[in-house]
């Protein structure tokens, strides 16, 4: 145990402090200010992959890595739509996910926001409308903010959150 602790402490030195990323920092502080004002300090997000290729998920995951660490700004991801202020939806909505997405939206308490994240969620992207896909998220549930990008980078996702507050 002592060896592990010693190694952990040493590895702590290996860990660089998150680099001063001015863009993330500036956006984060602005997001935090808005969250404090409008959501009493905590914004709960339920992410729903409605048909994504998993590219957007990688970037949403990155929001939680030590570089962006969005929790420090009061943003956290929750397991149930019933706990959520906001649905973050990725992918074109596959027709096999249509009912599940609608149910998640219905389970989210009002007032609720929906952000369509990624090109597919915004306009159907590479997949569009077909026998298997409803295309854009707004074809299934009302959308408040669109964040384009294939996939949107974590910084662009943060900017999108800000755009939601500025509505």
């Amino acid at each position, binding site marked *: 145990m002592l060896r592990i602790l010693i190694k952990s402490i040493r590895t702590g030195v*290996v*860990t660089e402090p998150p680099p001063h990323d001015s863009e993330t920092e500036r956006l984060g502080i602005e997001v935090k200010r808005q969250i404090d004002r409008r959501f009493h300090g905590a914004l709960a997000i339920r992410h729903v992959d409605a048909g994504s290729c*998993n*590219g957007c998920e990688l970037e949403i995951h990155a929001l939680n890595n*030590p570089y962006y660490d969005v929790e420090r700004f009061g943003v956290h991801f929750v*397991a149930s739509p019933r706990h959520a202020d906001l649905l973050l939806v990725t992918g*074109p909505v596959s027709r096999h996910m249509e009912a*599940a997405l609608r149910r998640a939206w219905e389970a989210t308490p009002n007032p609720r926001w929906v952000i369509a994240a990624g090109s597919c969620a915004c306009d159907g992207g590479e997949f569009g409308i077909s*026998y*298997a896909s409803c295309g854009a998220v707004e074809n299934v549930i009302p959308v408040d903010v669109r964040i384009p990008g294939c996939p949107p980078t974590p910084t662009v996702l943060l900017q999108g959150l800000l755009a939601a507050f500025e509505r």
Partner: protein
Amino acid sequence: MSRSSALQSLLEACALIGVQTGPPDPRSLVPATVVPVEAGDWARVAEAAKSAGLRWSALWVDPLEAGFEAFCLLEGDGQYLVLRTLVALDQALPSHAGIHAAADRPERHAHDLLGIIFANAPDGRRWTRHQAWPETRFPLLPEHPLRPEDQAASVADSSYVFAAAQGAGVVEIPVGPIHAGIIEPGHFRFLAVGETVLNLEQHLGYVHKGIEKLAVGRNADGLARLAARVSGDSTVAHSWAACQALERATGIEPPPRALWLRAILAERERIANHIGDIGAICNDVGFSFAQYQFSRLREQLARDNLDAFGHRLMMDQVVPGGVTRDIDPDRIVPMIAQADALAREVRQLIALLEDSESLEDRLMATGRLTPEQALMLGVVGYVGRASGLAFDLRRDAPYPPYDQFEVTVPSYRAGDVAARARIRAEEIDVSLRLLLKLLQSLPTGPIRTPWSTPARPAEGLGMIDGWRGEIITYVRLDDQGRVARFFPRDPSWLNWPALELMMQGNIVPDFPVCNKSVNGSYSGHDL
């Protein structure tokens, strides 16, 4: 074994049970050898393949004007064989699923999209189709439009029949399609007694986007763009497989520098995903220190990718005939230094993880897939390598530029979560060493051969070892040079069933860590 041995042993096994095959054709789907088979003999040849020790790898079906053409890919010692047969519209093709377990879901997928009937199939349930289109419509048939006019909102697929169990204390736990996290959707049905899992059954297909249909009529560039989005975490590997298939179909060869650059991209993709998954596996058993460290390294890689290639996931870099972006010569030396530093840091972190008894306690013997089960299912990639199946295309069926390098393939037999995590760690090391060699030996010259698709029918196979394992891609072009058939077979098709088996006897709370250790792609599987 000699070069002809996979074919030889199949033909001998066929002769033994009195099955005739057509003349082998080594040219139309290189590097595989095509073995024409009568539709009636389809299952018997599969039996011969089993007795010859060949691995069942993929099945795809191409709709013809009056019937179907079915293809089955087999592999033995790195040599690939394609069984090929014509099936009349009113004819049922004898199922492979009772002989090779891996054939079950691909056959059901082929039926759901094309209507081809498999005789004596052990599982007659639908697979990819939910409720979005009626049982009598087969969307991949040419007579059905990509975008039908008469579509109403699709309802939830609540009538799918799962395996059931009865008895005191048996509970059924439905999970998904939306999971409690930032992950892809799919449904898992557990049968449990207390915490212990009796059975897990998957119901996938939720992110079916009609990729095979969307490909039809596209040009080569359009196909590469679509292939890059089959599974976003494997964007390099899938677009490489599609481009390789296109290049083999048309005979257009990418220049050597492009091949080296593709391998650099692919190794970076492998490293990034393995790094991310090791952190996530540790996180799933509450060891957040590792998650912190590994997600930090992954982010560094994404940022370096953005700097060097203009995209954090390196999407749309691999295109027909080459790649879109060259490496700035000034970057080579810093990239080598970065790879070197990363290798050191990962080794240091892995040593630390190996020191943790609690991690060992949680990961060892958890989610065990025995070598016998692995062989029975025909799993690939790190799932196979952790259970005694040390197959890696880069070593066993090398495509350029891997034919120029030695690739070490780690392998264990424990088959538990710990073994799969260890394989990932060792593969990172192998990939970083490969990356160094690739950077040091990068040939000079152009990065793309000008592309113009010949206006004649052609077909080709792409076979790439992605970070999840063997990716197979079949492309057929029509007489205008447009895509007539595109089938990307993600390794997840073969690995998803392993998760069902490995959960038996484990506890429900260990499902996330077992699932992460396999990390099947939903999108790559559902298409």
